[in-house]
């Protein structure tokens, strides 16, 4: 790709149609959805979802984490209410993503905001946030196109994964690790300072304790609320008492400049 377009950012072709320029922006994300979507489709098939419903869940929920969670919780026969509650807490993070995009979408109609919210997701958020922040010509219309491209690739790879799952016998405990890896990746992308690492450790210990005590995934919900409140409190106290504390120093990652578009969180 680099050979064909040596410098795509600096020299935009003014005659390039909009669908193609937005597709070019969305392409790295689209391609990275393929392996994860395939794994997700295989797992959903194993959980009993038929191919049609796998397509539907990818279009309507459109969240890797949530769909993997549905598949895992169905295979351990969790009750409906517990799955939906867990999904709610998992999806609550979108409140943060959508509020941080809201300054760029001022003046849009509610119909547009509806369309935008339905296909919002961690990864296309990262791309759009970056484009909104750096490209003055980037508007809601282009952002929505990027969302739709990623939605299309995600749903298609899920459906193909579901078909693969029905054709081949696959070790599910290994495929399930795709979810763990996805979450680990998202944690690494979220780490901005040393305080975040402390919160990770606190949250990890709390999660184990709460789950052992409640004997259910409700422990996850409780530990998430406590850990995020501890983080909120600790940061506010540090900011007030020790504004130069090294716990608040920013951490930079070696690859962060090269592949900015693939960030899960560009905040």
């Amino acid at each position, binding site marked *: 790709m680099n050979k064909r377009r040596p410098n795509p950012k600096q020299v935009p072709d003014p005659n390039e149609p909009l669908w193609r320029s937005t597709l070019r922006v969305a392409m790295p994300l689209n391609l990275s959805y393929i392996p994860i979507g395939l794994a997700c489709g295989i797992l959903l098939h194993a959980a009993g979802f038929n191919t049609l419903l796998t397509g539907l869940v990818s279009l309507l929920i459109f969240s890797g984490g949530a769909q993997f969670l549905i598949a895992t919780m169905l295979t351990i026969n969790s009750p409906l209410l517990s799955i939906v509650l867990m999904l*709610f807490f998992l999806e609550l993070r979108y409140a943060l993503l959508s509020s941080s995009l809201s300054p760029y979408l001022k003046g849009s109609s509610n119909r547009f905001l509806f369309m935008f919210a339905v296909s*919002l997701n961690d990864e296309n958020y990262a791309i759009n946030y970056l484009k909104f922040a750096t490209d003055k010509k980037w508007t809601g219309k282009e952002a929505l196109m990027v969302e739709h491209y990623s939605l299309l690739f995600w749903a298609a790879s899920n459906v193909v994964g579901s078909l693969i799952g029905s054709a081949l016998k696959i070790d599910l405990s290994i495929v399930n690790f795709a979810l763990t890896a996805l979450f680990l990746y998202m944690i690494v992308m*979220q780490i901005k300072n040393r305080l975040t690492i402390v919160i990770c450790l606190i949250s990890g210990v709390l999660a*184990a304790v709460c789950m052992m005590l409640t004997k259910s995934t409700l422990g996850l919900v409780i530990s998430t609320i406590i850990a995020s409140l501890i983080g909120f409190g600790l940061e506010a106290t540090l900011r007030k008492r020790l504004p130069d504390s090294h716990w608040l120093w920013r951490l930079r990652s070696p690859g962060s400049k090269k592949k900015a578009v693939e960030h899960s969180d560009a905040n």
Partner: protein
Amino acid sequence: MNAVNTWNSTQHFWLIILGFIVAFIPRFFPLMLFTKRAIPEWFNEWMKFVPVSLFTALVVKDIFIDSASYALLLDKYSEMLAAVVVIIVAYRTRSMAISVVVGLIGVFVLSMFMA
């Protein structure tokens, strides 16, 4: 992961609809509200810690907690090692696809050598 789920497609359909509603609420309402008025600072400061806390909790559940009895498990060595590999790869490449694929290959290879 051996248990076979007994739900039928109608139940799956309703799960999707309910899932859509809980996925839609946190995506839409902040967007609708905050394109019209300012975001309260404390809300943002608090929500900042929700994703990282939740993802860590989910990873701990996947690696250290037994999915049936909710007892502490400390013998999933291949998953633990693969998790360390994923963290390093994610930190260095910042690519979601590479991290996930390396994680899958890692856990597959490691589980052949360890129980």
